[in-house]
């Protein structure tokens, strides 16, 4: 793995986790409840991923309809400006620690709707995204891989030793900062 990839996980990554950390993270990664945020075509593939063949219930992931009970928000589909405020509201209603998967190319960068006047070009203008899953729509296997990468992120978190701040988004692509450096 190239060096940059490890660094880009943010300031919570170390390579050493203690035994208690591992137990806690094992429990957390095996029960990721995701928020059903299927907006468009990727929403159908999200349903199929939760369906019988590519079953993510075997990872312990069940869909929840309310953000108060979910750890993961899978933004599946095109985000329009009218929906954007609701997306931000739902993200803020989720409890920490929370993760976001941006599923599909519409959620990652606006997809094939670059000339649309009503499509938000990427959900990372509003919420900090952890994993981007490309595809139009991504196959269920691709989304499962995205979920496993979130599990990798969870496994590396440390709870009892000194660590830097978590939950602060790093400056990244897309997020509408006004950069004055």
């Amino acid at each position, binding site marked *: 793995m190239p060096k940059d990839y490890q660094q880009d996980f943010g300031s919570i990554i170390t390579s050493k986790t203690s035994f208690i950390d591992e137990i806690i993270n094992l429990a957390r990664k095996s029960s990721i409840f995701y928020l*059903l*945020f299927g*907006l*468009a*075509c990727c*929403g*159908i*593939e999200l*349903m*199929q991923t939760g*369906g*019988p*063949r590519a079953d993510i219930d075997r990872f312990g992931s069940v*869909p929840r*309809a309310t953000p108060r009970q979910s750890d993961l928000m899978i933004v599946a*589909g*095109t985000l*329009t400006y*009218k*929906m*954007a*405020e*609701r997306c*931000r*509201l*739902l993200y803020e209603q989720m409890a920490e620690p929370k993760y976001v998967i941006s599923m599909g190319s519409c959620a990652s960068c606006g997809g*094939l*709707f670059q*000339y*649309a*006047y*009503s*499509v938000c070009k990427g959900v990372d203008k*509003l919420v900090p995204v952890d994993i981007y899953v490309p595809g*139009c*729509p991504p*196959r269920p296997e691709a989304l499962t891989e995205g979920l496993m990468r979130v599990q990798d992120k969870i496994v590396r978190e440390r709870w009892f030793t000194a660590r830097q701040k978590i939950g602060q*988004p790093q*400056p990244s692509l897309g*997020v*509408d*900062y*006004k*950069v*004055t*450096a």
Partner: protein
Amino acid sequence: MSKALEIPTMDMENKEVLRRIEISGDMLLNMGPQHPSTHGVINFLVQTDGEVMKRAIPEVGYLHRSLEKIGERCTYNGYMPYTDRVDYIAAMFANQGWAMAVERLLGMQLPRRAEYCRIVACELNRISSHLISVGTMAMDVGAVTPFPYALREREFINDLLEELCGARLTYNYLRIGGVAFDLPTGYEEKVSTFLDHFEKILDEFNRLITYNEIFVKRLANLAPISKEMAIDYCLVGPNLRASGVDFDVRKALPYSVYPEFHFDVPLGKGEVGTQGDAWDRFWCRVEEMRQSCRILRQALAQMPKEREIMGKVPRKIKIPEGTEAYSRIESARGDMQYYVVAGAGENAHRVKIRTGSFTAMGIIDTLSRGLMIADLVALIASLDVVAPEIDR
């Protein structure tokens, strides 16, 4: 180092519609847009006392992806992937509507094998679209198990269509003047095996769900729509046929090679309740799946042998400005219509897509007075609205 993220403001108080409703002690709740059972991102402003609704006003536009404006920028062939997104569950039909409209503008004929390939793909897509529709309807009414059953069958169809055109959901299979790929070798046997398996599943589905006592009690006599009301609000497809109007574009205004097939059109008869109630709309869809199996068997048996799948299309499609064409097809959700006005150059001047779900939303306000909230969910499910068709 860097400024804080500017969070977009929430501006909920300024809605005009709040001024129009007299609240008078009731609650005004938002059902949606993120909701597990509103069939996509649709919002309902529900004025209710907690259980019985006075009004449910639909609010759409949360998935408005400006497809009609994009149609003015794309070339005719390049617009095909966008038509997939008009109705992603029944994408082949949207493709076909666009292809037929532009072929009408060009005035061209297709080779017979191309028409047959289109029909095979479209009828397979009709079955998979109706599977989602009946599966989600059962789930909305409360029976969660039928939904994975429907998804399991849909996976087989996804495999078949993936073998045909490479994609599971947004196919982009049709082209102006034909189809993109021919049927692979051994495809007819695979589809026949699937149809043998699927027709037994349909009988099991009927025993388990359609005639289930609880299901019937939930849906019978729910929001019956009379013939006149259905025609006035311009409902189409299974919604219209459940109300007793015998109109199917495949039979009334035949297009493609549909005249060569024998199939029935299921009409709602009020078998367990009133004619035109939610159970009739559900039953129409289940029966349409059976008829699609019939059409598929005939299409595979009568497939022409000459392997020509594209007609004579110019490389750059240029049509005189102002020429307009109108195409109507029987999509899974009803009568989908494309109104295309050709522009100067290689793109259209105006594309208007009229879908069945858009007008079906207009009737929900009238039908929902006096219903309970759980019935509203069943009503939306029985009308089979999907958000992309409404918002485009």
